[in-house]
């Protein structure tokens, strides 16, 4: 191949490479495994931050502390889910959480609040859609969420049997993410 031919082929090859990259990005976005605005978690590989949260008022689940998480995680990996009733993607992932809870995976809930956004509809939401959580803590000041590095709801963390955070999903756990990412991890850390 002459130099001139190589020069002519170069733009075509660059276009093909870009098309491949865009295809991978778009299919990842559709399946939920790629988020262009996603931020990697600083907590993965580190122990669960210490906290203690009160229970949701007028709801029959106990509150949540880091000790509860470590105790349950010593038997099998557990999930910690930050959620709010006003959060539409939380509703998208809700059936997956219900399924995991029914299979016996401990799912702990933290009801997310920020300084400007409270969640008075939390109990009504749980009554209407079902409660997958073993325990629920209410994070009134948003302080526990900051300690976990949460920047939006839903966010879900997988804690292994040594109390180390192994995986974080920012955004809803779709059924694809459940099957392709979460189930293999639950099996690996079992």
């Amino acid at each position, binding site marked *: 191949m002459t130099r001139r031919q190589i020069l002519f082929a170069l733009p075509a090859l660059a276009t093909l490479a870009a098309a491949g990259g865009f295809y991978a990005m778009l299919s990842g976005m559709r399946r939920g495994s790629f988020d262009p605005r996603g931020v990697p978690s*600083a907590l993965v590989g580190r122990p669960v931050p210490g906290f203690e949260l009160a229970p949701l008022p007028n709801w029959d689940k106990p509150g949540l502390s880091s000790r509860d998480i470590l105790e349950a995680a010593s038997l099998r990996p557990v999930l910690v889910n930050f959620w709010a009733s006003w959060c539409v993607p939380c509703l998208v992932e809700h059936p997956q959480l219900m399924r995991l809870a029914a299979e016996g995976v401990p799912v702990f809930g933290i009801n997310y609040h920020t300084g400007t956004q409270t969640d008075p509809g939390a109990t009504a939401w749980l009554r209407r859609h079902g409660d997958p959580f073993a325990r629920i803590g209410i994070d009134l000041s948003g302080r526990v969420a900051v300690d976990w590095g949460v920047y939006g709801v839903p966010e879900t963390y997988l804690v292994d049997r040594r109390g180390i955070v192994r995986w974080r999903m920012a955004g809803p756990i779709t059924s694809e993410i459940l099957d392709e990412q979460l189930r293999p991890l639950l099996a690996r850390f079992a």
Partner: protein
Amino acid sequence: MRALLLALALLAAPSLAPAARAIVDPREMLPDPDQEARARAIGRELRCLVCQNQSIDDSNAGLARDLRRIVRERVAAGDTNEQVIAFVTERYGDYVRLNPPLKGATIALWASPALVLAFGLLAMLRLYRRRRGIAPMPPLTEEERAQLARLTAE
């Protein structure tokens, strides 16, 4: 005339607004003006992860508000600016810093402007050399001269 002046004043108002714009709620502010100024300076260094291209000092998001409060708590507790930024970076990673630190993972980011500049200079130099490299035609040899004479004689 008065109406005209009023209209002009109203038109000019939005351009004056940025100077006065402050998301920080007076209730959030620290009583000590020096500490408050430091908290504002730290807030401008930290990215709001909800809106991503605004600092927490500029953002109205709930998370930004919570982080502003935490920054003020740390400042009031006597932390240095670096300690406060380290506190937030430990939880949210380097991405939260609008001014990313120079280290292994960010070296490409910091070096890219220099690399692009070097590439551009190199390309210009090559082009310049090539232009200058078009040497004047060498003088005709004896043989060529004779051939030319023959051709012009015909």
